[in-house]
């Protein structure tokens, strides 16, 4: 093939087999990987040049089949059908060969450009489940390579094979060809079904517009399975469809479907036997026993809560000295700026930018620690068990257990939380999950908690923070419960979650994950928060002549105008202004308070200023934390909500609902807390 021709390579495979890990290994990107199914929900692209060939790599969401039932399966399937990649690489979990080969049987029918990468070979070998790649390659007559994604092993071989496959001209095999292995897949169905496939293929051959685009055998099989999508394609040519109906109606789709699945399984087990080296003893594995402990009916949830409790405790206590350090440095810099840069510029630097951005930067250590811990819990496979445990109580309330996965992802940031809801097939359940995901306390809210809990609940800060996260979950569940009974009536879909295997987390992966979070946080500090700080500073400094940050400034006027809404919650105008700007990004709440309290002025940081403010009390602090936890998610999350729900109406509803809930719950908290604190 010509030098520097662009090659398009798609990575496809079952969930949690290491597609994204391989993608990252090839491209050097740092897309999120994680030890549970459904981490990737969107198509991601990357570039690499290998031996003079430019290759575009596309990472796809995991899929068990390409029969297209849920949105992420559709993404994977449409990719192959519409974008016609030069090479489709199926990443296979070698420890789970049979289940993965199911998808292979389908892929081999839908595209002639298939190759396999046997990933996780390290685990497979450790478990005595090695697979003979050469033999498999011969059996299927497609290239097969071995890889270990996490160690970047076999990546060059994979790319070599891909370039070889693209150059072999296999993909140019005429669509009407049904017999050659590269076009027909490798499964032979029962004679009756094969007969039907031949008859349908003969009719289809008459329509060049279809057969030039899709493999005929695949079209025939899909028609037998009554695949709605394919039927639609065929119906476009009404003549053809009329000719097909007599053939199709002589086969019962249920029988055909069962027969086809049966054929696949028979072929798979024969194939697996031939290529597997060593054999598995069937026994109750220690991993199942451990599952029993961690998902125990009584102890499962308490263990999860205790671990979370410890995680938040660590986040707060271990972060404290590093916060002090950053706080001191920020204090120096800002004093230096105010003292040495004259006039307005000094003020915008010291009171605005450094005070605002600095007060947010202080919380970087907490973010890093929390995500380090979460990443370890996730990579071991524990978080997936936590999701499983939560299924029981959720289901008892009539809620879809699957909803807990998006909710857990929402802990990092609500944006991936919304996107993870794509794995939910039922439209109502999906919308319901989208509506409650904003209550999951994302990383951006953590600085607010650390600040206020640290100042006003010093001794129990970790516990207060943990309780806020819990409150978020409880409100989400209660809301879902109400919605299920009013807006989205119906039976929740049963939740069958596959447990990912236990894996020993690597320090490197955890550090990398932690850092990518930290980087995101820093980038936000340099953009949104910086701009927010400048705007708040300007509002606090003008009109010309007012005292900085006084009630006569524009900020004061704005705050005073909306303050009546917040009056019952005990918030003054400064907090009101900060809350408004928190819509940009929740960290801005802290940034704005930093600016408004003129944290830059002296070495006394925002913490001291808050302690001295008579308006602020433990009760107000608690109320404020609850309010920021529950009120609307940031702009970015709201935009994604609109994208994922496809509806302004529901997005608007979410905005109103979260604000009203936040107000009501905060009001209750304020009044109850008064009695105790």
């Amino acid at each position, binding site marked *: 093939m010509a030098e520097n021709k662009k090659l398009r390579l798609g990575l496809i495979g079952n969930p949690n087999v290491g597609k994204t890990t391989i993608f990252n290994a090839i491209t050097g990107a740092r897309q999120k990987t994680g030890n549970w199914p459904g981490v990737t929900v969107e198509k991601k692209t990357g570039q690499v040049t290998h031996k003079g060939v430019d290759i575009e790599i596309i990472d796809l969401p995991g899929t068990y089949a390409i029969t297209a039932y849920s949105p992420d399966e559709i993404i994977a399937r449409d990719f192959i059908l519409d974008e016609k990649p030069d090479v489709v690489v199926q990443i296979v979990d070698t420890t789970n060969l049979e289940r993965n080969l199911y998808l292979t049987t389908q892929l081999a029918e839908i595209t002639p450009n298939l190759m396999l990468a046997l990933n996780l070979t390290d685990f497979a070998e450790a478990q005595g489940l090695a697979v003979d790649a050469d033999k498999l390659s011969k059996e299927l007559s497609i290239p097969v390579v071995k890889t270990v994604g996490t160690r970047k092993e076999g990546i060059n071989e994979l790319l070599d094979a891909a370039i070889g496959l693209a150059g072999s001209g296999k993909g140019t095999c005429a669509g009407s060809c049904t017999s050659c292995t590269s076009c027909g897949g490798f499964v032979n169905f029962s004679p009756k079904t094969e007969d039907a496939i031949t008859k349908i293929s003969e009719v289809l051959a008459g329509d060049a517009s279809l057969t030039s685009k899709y493999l005929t055998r695949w079209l025939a099989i899909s028609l037998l399975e009554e695949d709605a999508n394919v039927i639609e394609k065929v119906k476009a040519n009404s003549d053809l469809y009329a000719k097909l109906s007599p053939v199709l109606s002589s086969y019962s789709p249920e029988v055909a479907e069962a027969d086809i699945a049966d054929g696949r399984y028979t072929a798979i087990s024969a194939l697996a036997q031939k290529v597997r080296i060593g054999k598995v003893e069937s026994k109750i594995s220690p991993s199942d*026993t451990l599952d029993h*402990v*961690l998902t125990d009916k009584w102890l499962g949830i308490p263990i999860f809560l205790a671990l979370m409790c410890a995680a938040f405790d660590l986040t707060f206590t271990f972060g404290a000295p590093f916060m002090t350090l950053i706080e001191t440095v920020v204090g120096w810099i800002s004093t230096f700026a105010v003292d040495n840069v004259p006039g307005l510029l000094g003020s915008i630097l010291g009171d605005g930018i450094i005070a605002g951005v600095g007060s947010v930067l202080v919380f970087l250590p907490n973010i890093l620690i929390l995500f380090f811990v979460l990443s370890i819990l996730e990579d071991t496979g524990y978080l997936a068990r936590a999701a499983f445990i939560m299924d029981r109580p959720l289901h008892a309330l009539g809620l879809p257990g699957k909803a807990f996965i998006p909710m857990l992802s929402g802990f990092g940031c609500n944006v991936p939380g919304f996107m993870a809801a794509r794995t939910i097939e039922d439209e109502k359940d999906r919308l319901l999950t989208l509506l409650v995901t904003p209550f999951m306390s994302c990383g951006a809210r953590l600085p607010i908690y650390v600040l206020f809990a640290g100042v006003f609940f010093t001794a129990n800060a970790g516990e207060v923070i943990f309780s806020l996260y819990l409150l978020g979950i409880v409100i989400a569940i209660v809301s879902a419960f109400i919605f299920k009974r009013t807006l989205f009536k119906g039976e929740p879909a049963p939740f069958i979650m596959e447990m990912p295997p236990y894996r020993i987390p690597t320090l490197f992966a955890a550090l990398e994950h932690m850092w990518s979070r930290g980087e995101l946080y820093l980038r936000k500090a340099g953009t949104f928060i910086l701009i927010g700080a400048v705007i708040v500073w300007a509002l606090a400094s003008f009109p010309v002549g007012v005292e900085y940050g006084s009630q006569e400034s524009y900020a004061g006027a704005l705050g005073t105008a909306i303050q009546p809404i917040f009056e019952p919650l005990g918030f003054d105008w400064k907090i009101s202004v900060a809350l408004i700007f928190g819509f940009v990004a929740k960290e801005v709440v802290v940034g704005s308070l930093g600016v408004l309290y003129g944290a830059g002025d002296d070495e006394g940081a925002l913490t001291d200023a808050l302690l001295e403010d008579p308006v602020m009390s433990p009760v107000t602090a608690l109320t404020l934390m609850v309010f920021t936890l529950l009120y609307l998610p940031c702009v970015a999350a709201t935009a994604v909500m609109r994208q994922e729900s496809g509806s302004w109406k529901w997005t608007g509803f979410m905005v109103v609902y979260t604000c009203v809930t936040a107000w009501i719950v905060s009001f209750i908290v304020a009044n109850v807390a008064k009695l105790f604190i």
Partner: protein
Amino acid sequence: MANSNKSKTNSNSVPSAKYGLGLIAGILYLAFGIMQLTATVGFTMPFYESLYITGGIFNAFVLLVTAAVFLTGILRMNRNTAEADAFLDVGFLLSLAFGIVAILGTLAGGLDMWIGEEEEIVEGMLETVTPLLYMVVFGFLGYCLWAKDLFRKVVAA
């Protein structure tokens, strides 16, 4: 029947030392959990201070959960050995994890004092000690002797 069951699971008997250590750990975690709970609601005994039991509902909760995991392991000993064994392993791992968190917290407390140029670094550190810290001895022992094999077993099984 009992025999065929046993031959299926690799470790058909739990070392009695593991059983013993698990039992002691379970009882102590339970006792400290209860004391921590009483301290939280304001009831204290003279010896509480020397054991660093200063109250805290979440601390009590964590202690009690750990106790429950150990004791469940002990109670299941006769019914399902493999599961009982796994409960003990998880107990030791939890004890170790919570202990490490407690140690890190105390170290951080000292570091914070040091950065703040305060005098009573050691006193400051001692203030943050909870039973979870010294109970890590059980987690550490249990981990080194037995629980570390759990990783190897579940990952390569």
